[in-house]
């Protein structure tokens, strides 16, 4: 399904709000949304929720033969999938640009920064190495997929345990989880992506844009750092023009954010470990709260609206009182009358006054006329309350009776002989 376009007024509203340093969910410019990390029953499976954006990460491993030019290193494989449940715009054929961009960014962030020690994944040099595969699935798209995906990937990798292997001479023994406890991967550092969205040609920037903000942004700058303040990846996209000091400022902000997020991740991993050791229940089923409304839930956004009230009062004070409502019908030509405002009707000019005056019918008939004038469509049913409905055919002396109109009147009016069209119409109404 093609994405619904963003209306101009919504775009303007968002941009004006950003200019006044207000975000729709009440966050500050450098605030992240709430991050929740939950683990599955298997090792290496986790769901990360960044606000409403949800990513599922799963790590698996396999023994394969290594690449020819890197015989002593294991293989890391990343795959991010935008599942169709994440957003209506994600369809199998349509996503290529975004998908390529995200996948390449994940690859560069995690593989090129050497966060995992690939040499430790080697079992028999040149013959058998571990291939670690990280699969990320986007479950819900509410903006900032990159950050959520990078957190999910690194959490899943930290959580994962691979089967233990021992090599004696030429013999390789692979132990099942029952024989020997699985071994965690050796991870050097945890790179985490932080996204900065730029607006109005780089004048304003926001951290962690949500989906609406992403639609109106000019471009995105992604900086991946670890908690030792080493930059693992920088990528600017979207065609924005940056200045050097903007990039430096963003890197400082990213450092602070990454430290916070890393702490959160370590705490979550620790909690999960504790629960497993103590024999408590773990897994996704445990992390979902029961008896809670999760869909169509609107929370009050903590936005400061104190200055809005003053402005609203000013506007109300200066506004003119609304013009008086005209309750008496205005008769333009015999047979047509008007209540209220609207396009000036031209039926009086088109049709001669063969039509009887309906004023006696009361307001109802006139309102019907008014509606018909505006739409210009012949409507047979306008929720008329009267049971008596009659077809009326206006006969022009020299023209054929083309126009057939329905009118609800309390007073019956006799008109021209019934013709076939009338009968057809009556059938239609019966069907209705």
């Amino acid at each position, binding site marked *: 399904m093609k994405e619904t376009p963003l209306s101009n007024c919504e775009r303007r509203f968002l941009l004006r709000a950003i200019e006044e340093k207000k975000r729709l969910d009440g966050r500050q410019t450098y605030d992240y949304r709430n991050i929740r990390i939950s683990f599955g029953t298997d090792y290496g499976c986790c769901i990360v929720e960044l606000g409403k954006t949800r990513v599922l990460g799963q790590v698996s491993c396999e023994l394969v033969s290594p690449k020819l030019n890197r015989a002593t290193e294991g293989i890391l494989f990343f795959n991010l999938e935008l599942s169709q449940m994440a957003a209506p715009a994600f369809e199998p054929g349509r996503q290529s*640009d975004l998908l390529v961009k995200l996948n*390449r960014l994940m690859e560069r962030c995690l593989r090129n*920064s*050497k966060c995992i020690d690939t040499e430790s994944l080697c079992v028999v040099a040149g013959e058998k190495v571990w291939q670690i595969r990280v699969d990320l699935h986007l479950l819900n798209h509410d903006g900032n997929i990159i950050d959520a995906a990078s957190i999910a990937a690194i959490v899943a990798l930290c959580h994962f345990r691979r089967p233990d292997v021992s090599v004696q001479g030429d013999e390789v023994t692979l132990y099942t989880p029952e024989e020997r406890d699985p071994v965690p991967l050796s991870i050097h550092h945890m790179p985490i992506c932080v996204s900065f969205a730029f607006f109005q040609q780089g004048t304003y920037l926001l951290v962690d844009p949500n989906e609406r903000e992403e639609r109106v942004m000019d471009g995105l700058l992604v900086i991946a750092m*670890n908690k030792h*303040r080493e930059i693992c990846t*920088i990528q600017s996209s979207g065609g924005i023009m940056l200045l050097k000091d903007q990039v430096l400022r963003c*890197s400082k902000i990213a450092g602070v954010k990454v430290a916070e997020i890393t702490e959160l991740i370590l705490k979550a991993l620790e909690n999960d470990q504790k629960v497993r050791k103590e024999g408590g229940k773990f897994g996704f089923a445990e992390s979902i709260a029961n008896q809670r409304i999760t869909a169509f839930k609107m929370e009050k956004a903590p936005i400061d609206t104190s200055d809005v009230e003053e402005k609203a009062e000013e506007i109300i004070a200066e506004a003119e009182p609304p013009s008086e409502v005209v309750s008496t019908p205005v008769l333009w030509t015999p047979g047509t009358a008007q209540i209220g405002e609207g396009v000036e009707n031209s039926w009086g000019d088109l049709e001669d006054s063969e039509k009887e005056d309906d004023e006696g019918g009361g307001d109802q008939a006139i309102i019907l006329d008014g509606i018909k004038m505006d739409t210009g469509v012949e409507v047979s049913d306008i929720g008329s309350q009267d049971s008596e409905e009659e077809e009326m055919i206006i006969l022009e002396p020299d023209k054929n009776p083309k126009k057939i109109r329905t009118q609800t009147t309390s007073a019956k009016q006799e008109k021209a002989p019934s013709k076939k069209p009338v009968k057809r119409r009556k059938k239609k109404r019966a069907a209705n």
Partner: protein
Amino acid sequence: MAGLELLSDQGYRVDGRRAGELRKIQARMGVFAQADGSAYIEQGNTKALAVVYGPHEIRGSRARALPDRALVNCQYSSATFSTGERKRRPHGDRKSCEMGLQLRQTFEAAILTQLHPRSQIDIYVQADGGTYAACVNAATLAVLDAGIPMRDFVCACSAGFVDGTALADLSHVEEAAGGPQLALALLPASGQIALLEMDARLHEDHLERVLEAAAQAARDVHTLLDRVVRQHVREASILLGD
């Protein structure tokens, strides 16, 4: 690569350059008569060829036409014999797609697309070695050759960081060594960065130095490209008999 010093004590790199020196750049414009604009550039051993068609009417679906600006379409393909192992798919794989997307992003920002609404500009780049910088430089020259108005030159250069010194314009050996690499596309007159891409770990404190080295190298590339363009125009006007 053990034992290979990327930066010797005297400050010389593997190929004898100093830290801030660029490789030798040779460029030619107007290599293809058929295309609206074309250029060929050699940066050291890296060769890139760029061809521009446009602005012309939108091919394919009319629905993609933008009412107020031109559509820039970039495709990148890398020669199969260019890398250490022979590549099986010259284009369509992820890296080529990504390179195409990045080129498009860079040139959409630089070309004055408002002057050609509802039209399409195609940029095809074929490179040897897959470096972004050579592709961008070649594409800039090709766009200039085609006469499409741009805000400014787009000059790109890569930079790295070894032993506390920032190196400009990395060669293949230095790239393969695995240190941090930064690719930067710059509009020299205003100093605005059109694209910034960095790989591998670099401490935040060194970022400024590396950025500065890359920016300076990009400005040097600009001087060279400027000279090439003026030379080409001079030759063309001599041939035309002006």
